[in-house]
């Protein structure tokens, strides 16, 4: 299928190892995800409007009506049905895409919770959004994080390019028969879903060389393959089933690494699979975060580096499977780590953010582990300013020097 005509002037880029053309387009994170759906030739897409996820629907339906994309596009009557429909479509062998935001994601929770157990390789986009009421459209990560223990793979992306690339990688990993687990790609509401950037959109041929067709094999629900999926099991079977899920999630790590290697070979980009290391080499303190937070943090880090402060930034790209090994490797030897959570964990250990506590747990076996300070910032889409990041870095230094309690959690940019 030919790439869609757009108003943006397209230009051909020479790529190392590339087997076809890529076109540059000025698109948002949501549009990048829609392109990934088109390029992956997704069979069934379900939709139910909620901001900011609904922008994906708009782009997908536009592509379909322009004749650039052919798929079953079903507008369901709720998020619950939306996720149920793709769950079943995937069981009969269709490549599927779905998504939601905030409370919409939560409304689908019954379906979300069982998708991993049924080994449905659904790829979903979460347009991260605060859980309202009170009404709030802005980004918080608690929506996507809610599935973190249920067998979903979870990636957080920082740019529209990364959104497109990660969606393609997500299909390859999720549909790998060694895995068969759903994968959600988290895109920060507004900052990513609604911001346009120059994105390299690969050709269908390039994507085909990377992404094999979905083959459910013996698990495909079909009259010629009579099977029952998920009967009543009770205590006699459930623990074995959960154990299988656990093993699949453990295997995901290697499959993700393989996919990034191949993506790098075919597209000439991709980077380190699980984390992004920014100015980490000689860092004394490191700031850690996910998603579009990278932008102000990188600017602030450069600014502080200019002042002689050895500050680095580590962006967590995959939250599930959690990059324990990479984080141990990157952060042991560092004096203190400041984790900026765009989420909250009320009543959790140290009242910290979710990422901070996961990181503390990952660093527990490390010899002389760094101090881990938890910061809560940018909730509900509030700006995390460069000054905020500088303040966070200063407090992380204080923790390194024992002048700040690292077992407390600090709310940044909140009015008293």
């Amino acid at each position, binding site marked *: 299928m030919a790439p869609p005509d757009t108003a943006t002037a397209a230009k051909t880029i020479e790529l190392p190892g590339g087997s076809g053309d890529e076109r540059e387009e000025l698109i948002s994170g949501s549009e990048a995800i829609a392109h990934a759906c088109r390029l992956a030739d997704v069979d069934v897409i379900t939709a139910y409007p909620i901001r900011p996820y609904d922008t994906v629907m708009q782009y997908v339906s536009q592509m379909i009506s322009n004749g650039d994309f052919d798929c079953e596009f079903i507008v369901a009557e709720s998020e619950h049905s939306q996720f149920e429909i793709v769950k079943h479509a995937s069981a009969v062998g269709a490549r599927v895409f779905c998504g939601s935001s905030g409370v919409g994601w939560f409304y689908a929770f019954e379906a979300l919770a069982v998708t991993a157990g049924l*080994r449905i390789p659904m790829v979903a986009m979460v347009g991260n959004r605060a859980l309202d009421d009170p009404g709030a459209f802005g980004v918080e990560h608690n929506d996507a994080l809610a599935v973190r223990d249920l067998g979903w793979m979870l990636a957080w992306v920082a740019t529209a390019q990364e959104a497109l690339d990660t969606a393609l990688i997500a299909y390859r990993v999720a549909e790998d028969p060694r895995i068969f687990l759903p994968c959600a790609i988290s895109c920060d509401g507004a900052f990513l879903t609604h911001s346009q950037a120059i994105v390299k959109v690969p050709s269908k041929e390039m994507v085909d060389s990377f992404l094999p067709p979905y083959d459910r094999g013996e698990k495909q629900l079909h009259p010629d393959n*009579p*099977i029952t999926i998920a009967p009543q099991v009770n205590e006699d*079977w459930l623990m074995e089933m959960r154990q299988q899920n656990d093993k699949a999630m453990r295997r995901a790590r290697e499959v993700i690494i393989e996919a990034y290697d191949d993506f790098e070979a075919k597209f000439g980009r991709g980077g380190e699979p699980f984390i992004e290391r920014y100015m980490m080499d000689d860092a004394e303190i490191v700031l850690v975060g996910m998603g579009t937070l990278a932008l102000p943090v990188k600017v602030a880090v450069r600014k502080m580096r200019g002042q002689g402060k050895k500050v680095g930034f580590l962006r967590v790209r995959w939250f599930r499977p959690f990059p324990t090994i990479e984080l141990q490797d990157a952060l042991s030897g560092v004096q203190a780590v400041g984790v900026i959570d765009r989420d909250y964990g009320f009543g959790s250990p140290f009242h910290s953010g979710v990422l901070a506590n996961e990181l503390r747990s990952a660093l527990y076996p490390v010899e002389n582990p760094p101090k881990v300070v938890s910061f809560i910032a940018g909730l509900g889409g509030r700006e995390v300013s460069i000054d905020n990041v500088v303040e966070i870095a200063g407090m992380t230094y204080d923790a390194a020097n024992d002048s700040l309690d690292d077992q407390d959690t600090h709310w940044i940019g909140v009015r008293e």
Partner: protein
Amino acid sequence: MSTGSVEVVYRGIFQKTLAKNICRGIVFAARKEGKIGTAFGRYGDSPERNGIPAKQFAVVSDTEEELEEHLAKYEPVNNDVTIAADDALCKGIESWAWYGLQPINKLLGDGGTLLVTSIQSPNKLIKTIHRKGTPYNLAIVKAQASFSGLWAYKDDHTDVRLLGALAKVAPHIVSLDAMLEAIRDQWNDDLKVAAAKRAYEATESTPVGVDQGNDEVPFSFDLPGWTKMEEGLVIRGMDAKPQDVPGRDGGYVPTRNEVFKKFSTRTMRPVINFDTCTKCTLCWLNCPDTCFDITPDGFYDANMEACCGCGVCEAVCPVKDCVTMVNEEAFEDNDSQWEMWTKDKEGYLAWLTKNITERPARSHGYHHVGQYAEEIADGTA
């Protein structure tokens, strides 16, 4: 130092309150003697569906520590008494909680007593019960199965009669005096106390030897480990190639699950008058469990391994008295009615007529004041 445990097997929904009253009655009575106890349902049986066999237990101990030791396992497996609140359960029970048919005496300890409400003789009942590797006793409280609804409890004294009988067969768990005192406390009704006492006096036990009973070996099953189980909770379908009906052009014999039979759900079964059947197909079309086998001569034979006793076929049959639901306890096997009819039409008609005319009513509680006294007088209570 001692612990006693009682298993109550009952029909889900129809007898839930009955089972609860029995188990609570045991614990209250034991309390009168200074013991401590607990009453609980086997969770795996939920959700209870119409007539699905379900279980509740009562455990009583001399001390709290002893009780805890007994409760720190999934369910009591060596019960002093197993109570079956419907004698049709003696044919074995299937539920959501295990695989295949479980013998009614499976969780009964050595030398324990199976206590059943029934109007059948012990010998007739023993024939339907799976053999147990060890001797046990069978005690019968003369009564029809007492069924009611989930929210309405029709009090026909089955609860206190079973409690009175329990004091007789297991005095080490609770004495008659304590039981009567507890019943008086709970119900404040002299008639219920009298009913319990009467059942105590009337209940006799029959010893059942290891070589008595149904010698069918119950289905057993090894649960696979996670490395053997198919991932994604996929269960392969059976090789379900419908077979042709022997000697007939058209129709097919459906494939049925060898293991999951469903018939223990049944408290009544349809009997069919093939002499009046018009072969209209309505029973075959409407049976929710696809129970009807097409016979070579074009009749519809309800397969009794598969029938759950819902009564739909009786309701849809357009011919008067052609399909009649009859109490399950009247039957000893699941044999084909059509085969019986084909072999001996007159004999079959006699068998059919007897079953239809002599079928006892199912008790759904007393319909009028004084019915209990009447039943005592006519010997049915």
